């Protein structure tokens, strides 16, 4: 127990890094996944093929490998210095690369969720949109996607929960988030490993429960009777 109390600063800063990773990667993944889903339902063959292969590649590759490749590829492409700061908090290049890796990986799952949501919107909606003269982009943006997002809240929630847990993989590449702190402390104070594990696990459980809570609130707010 003392180990947890004595290292509370390290653990707290670890969880802050976890939350930042979750937040930024989550936003990026949602945007990218929605664009990919639009590709996958579009009438343009090459975009459809790109969307399909993107999803198949990223869903079937382990996240560790995606991150390892991101760390190898992104700096080689010339993006060497990706350190940045938000609200007085410094983020290293490794953080940024891990963040993009997580976003690329999660985008594939978001894409599939949004696509199934688009397919669940009844045909009449899009037909009505077309018959009053809306273009493909307009009917997607104004009619279909707003309805699709309501039905995809439960699958999106499980994706964000998976993302919250997946941020721990960044620890393998030295991003000092919660799992990294746990590994460091477990190495240092092996006899206290039960406290360290339960302490960090409770932190993750709180994050997961918060996401489900927010999701059920949002779901209640935007629910529509069909």
């Amino acid at each position, binding site marked *: 127990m003392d180990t947890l109390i004595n290292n509370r600063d390290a653990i707290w800063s670890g969880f802050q890094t976890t939350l930042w990773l979750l937040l930024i990667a989550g936003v990026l993944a949602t945007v990218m996944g929605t664009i990919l889903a639009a590709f996958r339902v579009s009438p343009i063959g090459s975009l459809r093929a790109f969307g399909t292969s993107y999803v198949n590649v990223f869903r*079937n590759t382990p996240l560790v*490998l995606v991150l390892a490749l991101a760390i190898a590829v992104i700096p080689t492409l010339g993006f060497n210095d990706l350190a940045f700061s938000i609200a007085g908090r410094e983020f290293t290049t490794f953080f940024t690369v891990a963040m993009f890796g997580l976003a690329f990986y999660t985008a594939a799952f978001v894409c599939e969720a949004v696509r199934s949501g688009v397919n669940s919107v009844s045909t009449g909606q899009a037909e009505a949109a077309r018959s009053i003269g809306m273009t493909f982009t307009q009917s997607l943006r104004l009619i279909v996607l707003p309805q699709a997002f309501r039905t995809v809240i439960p699958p999106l929630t499980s994706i964000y929960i998976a993302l919250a847990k997946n941020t721990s*993989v960044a620890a393998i590449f030295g991003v000092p988030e919660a799992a990294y702190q746990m590994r460091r402390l477990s190495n240092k104070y092996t006899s206290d490993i039960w406290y360290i594990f339960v302490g960090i*696990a409770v932190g993750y459980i709180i994050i997961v429960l918060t996401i489900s809570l927010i999701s059920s609130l949002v779901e209640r707010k935007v629910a529509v009777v069909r």
Partner: protein
Amino acid sequence: MSDVLFDQPGPKARARHNVMTAAAGAVLVGLAAVMLWKLWQEGEFEAELWEDLAQPNIAQAILDGIVATVSAAASGIVLSVIFGGLFAVGRLSEHAWVRWPARVVVEFFRAVPLLLLIIFIFYGFQDYLGTYWSLVIALMLYNGSVLSEVFRAGMLAVPTGQSEAAYAVGMRKNQVMRLVLLPQAVTIMLPAIISQCVIVLKDTALGVIISYPELVFQGQLIAEYVKHAIVPLALIAVIFIVMNYSLSKLAVFVERRFAQRGHSSAKKTAQVEAGALDQSGGA
């Protein structure tokens, strides 16, 4: 292709779509070409690298990695199915003292990142377990908990007539669960179990953190050896994609087979569950 969003295109629209397909294709190919050219310029594809990669010990390392990955994943999935079955029955028990502990265990292991479990089991018990069993037990606890929820849904989806009939011929609760509901739930859920195999296979890659010699670990060793990371890691990615893509296709095939055999009432749940698992993903 989704038919929700656009009507069947006429000749004009088809011509327009063809032009846009070509234009978008050109842009995508162009982007890929710029990336590959940049990597080529940085010497990621130089002739020396391919010579290094052609050595027999590289192929051996990759083969060892495949064996290590598949054997950990296989043990992991078998133990997960057993664990999942036990805890699904536990969660459906009539006795609160069985139901509640089972629920706490399942909810806990589902909410905790797998990597945390691996680190905990490895640092806590490495003297007894070693890397292989540390990884396999972590896989069992995490994926077993996920599967137990799947089985529970499956057992609830078995038509009530089945358990009523079993009670009518004089079976006990224990027998009904063990002999009637669980076997049917497992068959209904076979596609979901196969989808979970994809996740387990991907999750074995987390073994790198405890230096278990699976594919990603071997890939990193090779990368160090040939002093270039991108090509070896991409090669490992291709191996994973081929293995997992065939497994997902197998899941779809099995699902179709069951649909033909007409497990109609339970089929829908199985599809829903398989979909949910697909989407939440694992690491």
